[in-house]
């Protein structure tokens, strides 16, 4: 198994109406651990050790990105799970949902150029001590696709210690504050990022650099 995955750890990947990348996230998780989809209308997390809130346009992102999904039955359980210290990863729309739910600091605003952009970007690992980056080296660059229209991270009072990933110089197309690509909560068990590590887990489709996020979680899941 690559990156020291562990079948005793189980990922739960949420599925909302309008999720787009949930199957991709499921495939990525399945490379390092067990994984199962969790339906938005069910409160049961089915014994998952770690939760992935995937990308897409949950509930069409009507009203505001992530604003409706945050109130779904499954999210009630995820919020409780996070408060109990469970590992939660939010990718793109999932990051937006976790911000809306108050599990992560800050908010995601429309990109400075107000267009959807899909581009392979380099991310610098700022903090390699987290449950989501323990398989990375400090300062390591990860090549991962980013694709979004509402990804400008904004958190004026952010504790700088919470920054986990930053866009490498010249790679931040969305105008995020301090070029921040991913942040964690103060407790360290919830992490969100706009780029898509689940789309960088296979050399065939361009990069395997995203796999370390999932293997880090699997590793941390065993440690817990």
């Amino acid at each position: 198994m690559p990156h020291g995955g562990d079948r005793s750890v189980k990922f739960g990947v949420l599925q909302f109406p309008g999720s787009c990348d949930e199957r991709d996230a499921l495939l990525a998780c399945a490379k390092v651990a067990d994984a199962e989809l969790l339906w938005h209308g069910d409160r049961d997390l089915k014994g998952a050790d770690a939760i992935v809130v995937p990308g897409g346009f949950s509930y069409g992102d009507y009203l505001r990105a992530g604003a409706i999904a945050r109130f779904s039955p499954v999210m009630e359980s995820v919020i409780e799970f996070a408060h109990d210290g469970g590992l939660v990863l939010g990718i793109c729309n999932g990051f937006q949902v976790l911000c809306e739910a108050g599990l992560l600091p800050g908010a995601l605003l429309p990109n400075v150029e107000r267009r959807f952009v899909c581009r392979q970007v380099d991310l610098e690992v700022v903090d390699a001590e987290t449950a989501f980056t323990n398989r990375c080296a400090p300062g390591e660059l990860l090549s991962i696709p980013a694709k979004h229209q509402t990804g400008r991270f904004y958190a004026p009072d952010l504790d700088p210690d919470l920054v986990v990933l930053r866009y490498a110089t010249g790679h931040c197309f969305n105008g995020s504050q301090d070029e921040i690509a991913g942040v964690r909560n103060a407790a360290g068990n919830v992490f969100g990022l706009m780029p898509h590590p689940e789309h960088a887990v296979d050399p065939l489709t361009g990069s395997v650099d995203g796999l370390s996020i999932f293997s880090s979680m699997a590793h941390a899941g065993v440690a817990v």
Partner: protein
Amino acid sequence: MSRSEAVALGLTEGEYDGIVDRIGREPNQVELAMFSLMWSEHCAYKHSKKLLRTLPVEGPRLVLGPGENAGAVDVGDGWAVAFKVESHNHPSAVEPFQGAATGVGGILRDVFAIGARPIAVLDSLRFGEPTSERSRYLLDHAVAGIGHYGNSVGVANVGGEVYFEAPYEQNCLVNAMCVGLVERERLIRSAAAGVGNKLVLFGASTGRDGIGGASVLASAELGDADADKRPTVQIGDPFEEKKLLECSLELLDRGLLVALQDLGAAGLTSSSSEMASKGEVGLRIDVRQVPLREADMEPFEIMVSESQERMLCVCEPGRVDAVLEVCARWEVGGTVIGEITDTRRMEIFDGDERVGDIPVEALVDDCPLYDLEPAAPAAPLYDAPARTLEATAARDVLLGLLASPNVASRRPLFEQYDSVVGSRTVRRPEQADAAVLAMPNGGAIGISIDGNGRRVACDPYRGAVEAVLECAANLACAGAEPLGLTNCLNFGNPEKPHIAWQLTEAVRGLGDACRALDLPVVGGNVSLYNEGGEGPIYPTPVVGMVGELPDPLHAGRTGFAREGDAIAIAGPFAPALPGSELAKLRGEPLPDGLPETDVAAVRAAQAAIRDAVRGGRLSSAHDVAEGGLLTAVAESCLAGGLGAELELDVADEERVFGEGPGGFVVSAPEAALRELAERIPVTIIGTVRGESIRGPGLHASLDELRAAHGALAALFD
């Protein structure tokens, strides 16, 4: 209803008389509305059907041919790939964002209507010159609409093409192609069957949007009052489509359906009557059961509304509850609106009152077909393009070509589309000449879409042959062998003899090229009446092609990959300047005819390139197209980030900037090129080296090339 009302709906007086003849009385309002759409050019193909019958539709790998919502080919191990291209030209010319968005929505539904999960979208766009404010507006909004819809549904947009030419100024083209993946045994047809079975409408509710879209908008020339037609353009909701897609596939997974059909042009009328026609049954529909957005809609409006994101299915009565349960799970509305009868009539009820009663055959199959009256034009149909390039030095010509809107990098467009969702995209835009997607059986498919209308305007027959060869060449460079093609025939008004001639010649070219490559046409679409006040568009047959390659690890690349590799021009390349991109930039009139192509030799060259790519013997492969050989070399430099030292006589403009099928720029160790030369002509022209393109009389740095190639970015500021 009277003849004059029929004419207002787009029918001719003769067609109205034919309707009266067939139903034995004058049609009422509901019936006339239904006939006016089903007998429109858009639905009945009345000016093109006879021609389309000349296209080859058989092939060893064919699974579904023309006549179903989408065609499909076998890709092995029980898997099939479904695909189709369709136009949404007139809606996009009137309202580009929604027109393009709903064009994507419509083609997605065509593909999941046969049970396939959409895995890729490609688009083919035509606008007037970007110097025109209107063209920039159309481009900006159409691209945003395509992105908005496709990104939201979560289907990768993996490729496409765009050309800018003055004849598209008033009538832009927006063609979208969708590719889907399905286990062969899960394919479902649209034929209604089983008397007493229920007809369930599911998806969005029905409103007044898109009324008359197929007839008064899609089947007539554009003109001054087009702003008034904006209400005929539908409004898309990709979130509803995403739910509808997942709901439809789950209904099929659970084996609950007898038949499935999407609602597209002419809405409930065409979807239901075509299901009845294919199943040789009748249908009884109660419009009062249809969930409405506006309570006071008339029965005829309900029958012809083109509200988006709706599907129609047939299920056994005992399974209705299970069907509605799946709909509820996906938060999709579902309602029984009728049932299958043995009458072979479309019986429309408004509650207890019968408001329409038409034989299915008259509505679907009896539309009169017209013979075209083709005549080659006596004088040139198109003005010479405006002269925009004065340069003659090779370096300046090359930079001018790279900056030409038809050659410049498409990055500012394709970066607005999600190209990676689905975890299948092995080659993204600009990485290879064709998109490459991994298949569940370990193989891969290559996909390409192309069609240079200016070449077809020069020579409708040979231009159409070139469009097919160009797609096949793109696939060859990726290592893929073609399995089938779909086409969208975008032409002017076929009632005019010179347009009829363009159409006839182009279809003859398509057919001959397909036969020469042993390729079936699996389906497609025809868009006629593409004319504005200043004349017809360039005749534009857009070809979409799907091929297979055994090993995605050996998918080809466009870009040079290794310093020291030899660069060669391979294949039976016989370039000519007339009709080329350079001739256009210099304002030269279109030539009357293109040189003849040795199709068999081109096919052999494509096979040799394909084999060399699959064998991992070539570092890069890129077919020579717009801008000619030197432009192709520069594109391979830019895609790979490596320079080239060339030994070429750049003063020979025909050789370095001329165009024609059959040429490939390849790079590899010399030994591999010598091996390739045993099968096809190969001439070594240089070496991959450095950070510029240089040779006798030529020097341009990669940065200079990149700056020129990035010209389109300015259109999106």
